[in-house]
Every structure is written in structure tokens, then in C-alpha cells.
């Protein structure tokens, strides 16, 4: 999927993005249920309301590009095409999970699908992305590296250091801030000194763009341009995606900090409903086709959970495997 700069997106491209976004939404809704049924132990952070960012940014990448993400990573993994059953199994801490139950939701990693890792440390992946981009530059691999991070991570020292270095060296990296209104339970207004993170880009000598994080068309266009710049050797871009986390910081968060009416206000900006409206009004996609996409997504995530649930739990027998590379596993 690559909606070029200024090129009008096709029906096929937008339908594909719609499919990805719905898959993420239904996966996350199911994750909430599985957490409540105590089938997903550990800490689970869902990205409901933020699906357009994962779909739009990852949709602008090509084979070989790499992504580093956050403790709220499911959407990015799905948008990068990770196997749903293996992903679900990992979240359920099964032997058959992507990481054999070592990682769970927050530490997921799947290099086979271009993902160098979620991250259990806020901002932890941002310097790594700059390293991966440096490797791409030295090797002349043509890869673009994307690092997702939140408004909370934007205050981490390592992020500032990494952005300065990436801009200085014109590395092929894209910094995507999912500015979702909260760092854990603290609102953005209480923890960042600017209204959007892209305002900091000029301070690093970097291109910065603020975009409606719930508008897949706008995100896709911004992503395509950032990818073009990175691949052309023009350096990094800092994209601030304004969105709202529609659930708690973690599943189980009582969300006492939410202002009244906030969610219903943002419900009107729901990225999936907005894309559905575009598809039906601008492209005459019939309602039953959109419903079929939804049914397929619902079915796919349910199948993944049913299969994963039957798999054996991760064992403690292999805990010494892969501590060091080059040792027998």
C-alpha cells in the first residue's frame, strides 16, 4: 500500500486500509474480553481509537523496512502482517506464541515481519531505531525504519538524543508520535511543554508534521512523503499524530482522570467510521461489502483465539535458551 504524495487513493487501497483497521479494532476488542476472562495474564495495553496510525504508517512501508514500537503494539504488529494466531498465542503466553510466551503483549518482537520489537520501556525503542537506520545507511540497504512512540516517551532523554543524531546524520528514520492524550494517567497538558510534538522538529533541524491521527487519508499522505524523504536520503521526519486513547492506560485502569464527555466527543472522530463514510460516499462501496469486511475481521480474530486457547501454555523448561547467541539452544 503506497498512496503517493498528491496521488488520489484508489478504492482498492482504501479498502485494504479499512480491512487492516477493522482487524486491529476487532482484535483489540477481543483482547479486552480475553483479559477479563483472565486468558491474557500480565499487562495489556490496547490501541482502540488509534488504528489509523498503525494502518497508515505501516501501509506506506515496503518489504525489508523495519518498525520499532511501544508497550501498545498490537496494531502495529497486525498492520505489518504478523500471523494473528501466533500473536494471540503470545498474548495468552502459550508455547506457540511468536516469542514462546517470553514476551506477552508488551515485549512482542517479530523480526520476520519487520518488527524489531515492542518495548517495555517508554521511549526505549527510539534510540534503537536510529541505530537500525544507521545500519541501513552504511549498508545502503534502502530500508526505512519507523519508530512509534507516545507523547509520554517524547520527554525521555534518549528520544531527544536520538532525534538530534538522526537529523544530524540524515538517517532514513521516521519518528511517529502517537499523541493519544495521556502518558499513562497524566494528560498531555500536564507533561509536555508544547501542544504537539512536531513543534519540536525545528529544534532538531528536522521536518515536522502535525496530522489528524484519526484521518487515514491524511496519515497515508504524510507517511508517503516521510518515506520518500527517508529513502531519498533527505533525512528523518517527526510526525505528530493527534488522537485519543479510547480505553485506559492498561486494561483494568478505572480511568478516573477522564473529563466528562471526552469519549463521546471523540467517538464522532472514530477513524474507522470516517473511512467507512469515505468508502461509501466517495467510492460507492455498498454497505454489504463493508459488513463482509467486518465479519471477516471478527471471524479471523475469533479463529485465532480459539486455536491459540487450545495450545499448551509456555513452559519453564526453556528459560535458559537464547541468553547468548552462539550457544546451543
Amino acid at each position, binding site marked *: 500500500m503506497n498512496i503517493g504524495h498528491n496521488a488520489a487513493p484508489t478504492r482498492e487501497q482504501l479498502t485494504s486500509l479499512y480491512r487492516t483497521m477493522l482487524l486491529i479494532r476487532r482484535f483489540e476488542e477481543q483482547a479486552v474480553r480475553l483479559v477479563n476472562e483472565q486468558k491474557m495474564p500480565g499487562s495489556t495495553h490496547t490501541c482502540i481509537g488509534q488504528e489509523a496510525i498503525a494502518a497508515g504508517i505501516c501501509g506506506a512501508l515496503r518489504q525489508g523496512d523495519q518498525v520499532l514500537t511501544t508497550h501498545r503494539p498490537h496494531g502495529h504488529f497486525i498492520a505489518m502482517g504478523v500471523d494473528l494466531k501466533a500473536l494471540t498465542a503470545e498474548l495468552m503466553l502459550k508455547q506457540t506464541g511468536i516469542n514462546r510466551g517470553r514476551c506477552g503483549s508488551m515485549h512482542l518482537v517479530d523480526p*520476520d515481519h519487520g518488527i*524489531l520489537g515492542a518495548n517495555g520501556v517508554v521511549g*526505549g525503542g527510539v*534510540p534503537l531505531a536510529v*541505530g537500525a537506520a544507521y545500519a541501513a545507511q552504511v549498508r545502503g540497504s534502502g530500508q526505512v525504519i519507523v519508530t512509534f512512540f507516545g507523547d509520554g516517551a517524547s520527554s525521555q532523554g*534518549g528520544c531527544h538524543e536520538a532525534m538530534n543524531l538522526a537529523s544530524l546524520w540524515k538517517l532514513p528514520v521516521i519518528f511517529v508520535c502517537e499523541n493519544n492524550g495521556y502518558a499513562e494517567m497524566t494528560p498531555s497538558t500536564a507533561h509536555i511543554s508544547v501542544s504537539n510534538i512536531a513543534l519540536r522538529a525545528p529544534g532538531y533541524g528536522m521536518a515536522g508534521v502535525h496530522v489528524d491521527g484519526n484521518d487515514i487519508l491524511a496519515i497515508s499522505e504524510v507517511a508517503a512523503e516521510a518515506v520518500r524523504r527517508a529513502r531519498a536520503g533527505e533525512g528523518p521526519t517527526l510526525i505528530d499524530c493527534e488522537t485519543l486513547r479510547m480505553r485506559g492506560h492498561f486494561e483494568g485502569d478505572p480511568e478516573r482522570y477522564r473529563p466528562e464527555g471526552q469519549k463521546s466527543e471523540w467517538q464522532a472522530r472514530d477513524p474507522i467510521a470516517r473511512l467507512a463514510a469515505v468508502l461509501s460516499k466517495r467510492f460507492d462501496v455498498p454497505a454489504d461489502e463493508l459488513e463482509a469486511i467486518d465479519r471477516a475481521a471478527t471471524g479471523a480474530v475469533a479463529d485465532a483465539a480459539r486455536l491459540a486457547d487450545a495450545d499448551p501454555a509456555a513452559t519453564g523448561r526453556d528459560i535458559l535458551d*537464547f541468553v547468548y*547467541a552462539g550457544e546451543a539452544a
Partner: protein
Amino acid sequence: MKELKFWQAINEAMHEEFARDDCVTLSGIDAGTPGGAFSASRGLLERFGPLRVRDTPISEAAIAGLGVGAAMNGLRPIVEIMFMDFLSLALEQLAGQGAKQHFMSTGRLRVPLTVRTMCAAGRNAGPQHAGSLETWVAHIPGLKVVWPSTPGDVKGLLKAAIRDDNPVIVIENLSLWTAKGPVGGEDHVIEIGKSEVKRAGRDVTLVCVGSMVQRALAAAGELSAEGIEVEVLDLRTVSPLDREGILASVARTHRLVIAHDAAKPFGFGAEVAAIVAEEALTELDAPIRRVTAPWAPLGTAPAQELAYYPGTEDLKAAVRSLLG
């Protein structure tokens, strides 16, 4: 065998590994154009170009993350954290990220990273510049830590670190910088995790590493004149510790002294002592002694350094105390 100074051996190791493998890079503060703050990277920029040899901002977290991320995407990078005190600024990227990638990815990611860092003990560098902080990294599963004591060893261990598929911290003593010694050729690679008997002796094993080895050898030489033969065991690698090498030496001497420049509590001496206590207690003819720095930060003045670091006399006294 030719003789080189310690820093020249580092320089030669990097030149050889850069020529051997296009994936080897060097990044750090003053690493490129100035040729290293202490000349160790001299000539690399001119020979291998500005993409592979780069000066960085003073940003230790980004330098470490740069190394880990580049290693995850196909390079075999060397990064410099100028003084090991500054490892604290890089520790999340090294210990939280780099050390765990192979484990978390169940073997699909590798981090063939070398971190060169310096211990400036003995050069009046002061409380924030001369720490012996090897335990910060030695306690992390997934990391390896080597600490060479001679020009030959630094060449062989640095080359091993660069070729290793894991993150390896290489500690270099500034006090050894101009020490001269024989240095092997291009194939001189020393296995990580193996100690070396630097001087054989029947009476007491003296376990040490890095610049402490020189003081240990001096003490052993002086004690020999008294009829006491000390076996100086240079660990060469702090993590993973060479259990077999330690136990074999204790089995020969039946007495053990461990010396390091770090403070005593939780220092690697405690680990060495515990290994021997757990696995070879009946071999011992005397209690284990540790000779270490005191539980305090380091001062800068020469007299303060002398009072802080174990010296040859301290080592001799500890050895004698076991033979009473």
C-alpha cells in the same frame, strides 16, 4: 613477536577488523576526526571513511542505542563510552535493550556489539571519572565483560569482542595506555570467558583483572624473594567468569586472595569467593581474603588515590596473612 603500546594494540585490532569485515563501524565522542580522545582510533577515518567511522554528539544513551540498533540490523558496530562512569547514561540501552534482544526474539535477533570504555583509575581523574564499575554490566545476563591487562590481551580480546555475536563491554585502563608488550598478528583472537595464569605459583592464588594484574605481578615478584610463590590468575573476562580456571588454580594452591579496584560489597570478588566456597571449600587451607577499594567514592588527589586503591603492599599483606 613485535611489541606495541597498549593503545597501539587497540588501534591495530580495529584496523584489522575493519579491513576484515565491512560491517564493522566505530562511533563515539571524538572517535572519528580527532582519532579518539586518547588516539586509539587514529587513522581509521582516513582509511575507512566517514560512514563507518563517526564522531557522535555527547549523547551516551543514543550512542549505545545506535550500537544496539545497528547490530540488530546487520552491522557489527563498535561504540565508545569514553569513561565507564558514563555507562550509567547508556545502561538502559545496553542492559534493558541490547542484552535481551536475542532472548526475547527467541534467537531471531543478534546484537554483535562491542562497547569500548575506559577505566581512568590512577590518573587523578576524580570521583566521576575513574570508577571501577564493572559490576554494573557484569550482573546482566546477555552481556559479556572483558578487561585486558596487556597489549597482547587487549588486541586478542577486542578482536574476539568484535567477532562475538553478543554485546561485549571491553574495559580499557588508561593507566596501561603506554605500557609496552608483545602483540600477536591478525589471527590473534583470545577466547572470551577464559582466564590466564600470568605467573604460576604453589602457595596462594591471587585472582585479579585489568590494571590490578600489574600490581599482583609486582607483589608476587617481591613475595618470591621471601620464599612465597603466588599464582597470579588474570581473569581477562569478568563475565562470564572462568569457573574452571579459578577452581583449577585453587586446587593447586589451596589458598585464595581476590583483588579489585571496586568497593568490596557486591564486587566480583564476592562472586569468585562464593564459587570457591560452593564448589571447592574443602580445598581451602585458609579463609578467602578480598583486597578491594573501601566503601566510598574516589577522591582526586594523588594521596587520596593511593589511599583508595589496593597497592602492592596491601596484596602482599593479604597473601602473608594466609600463610601465617
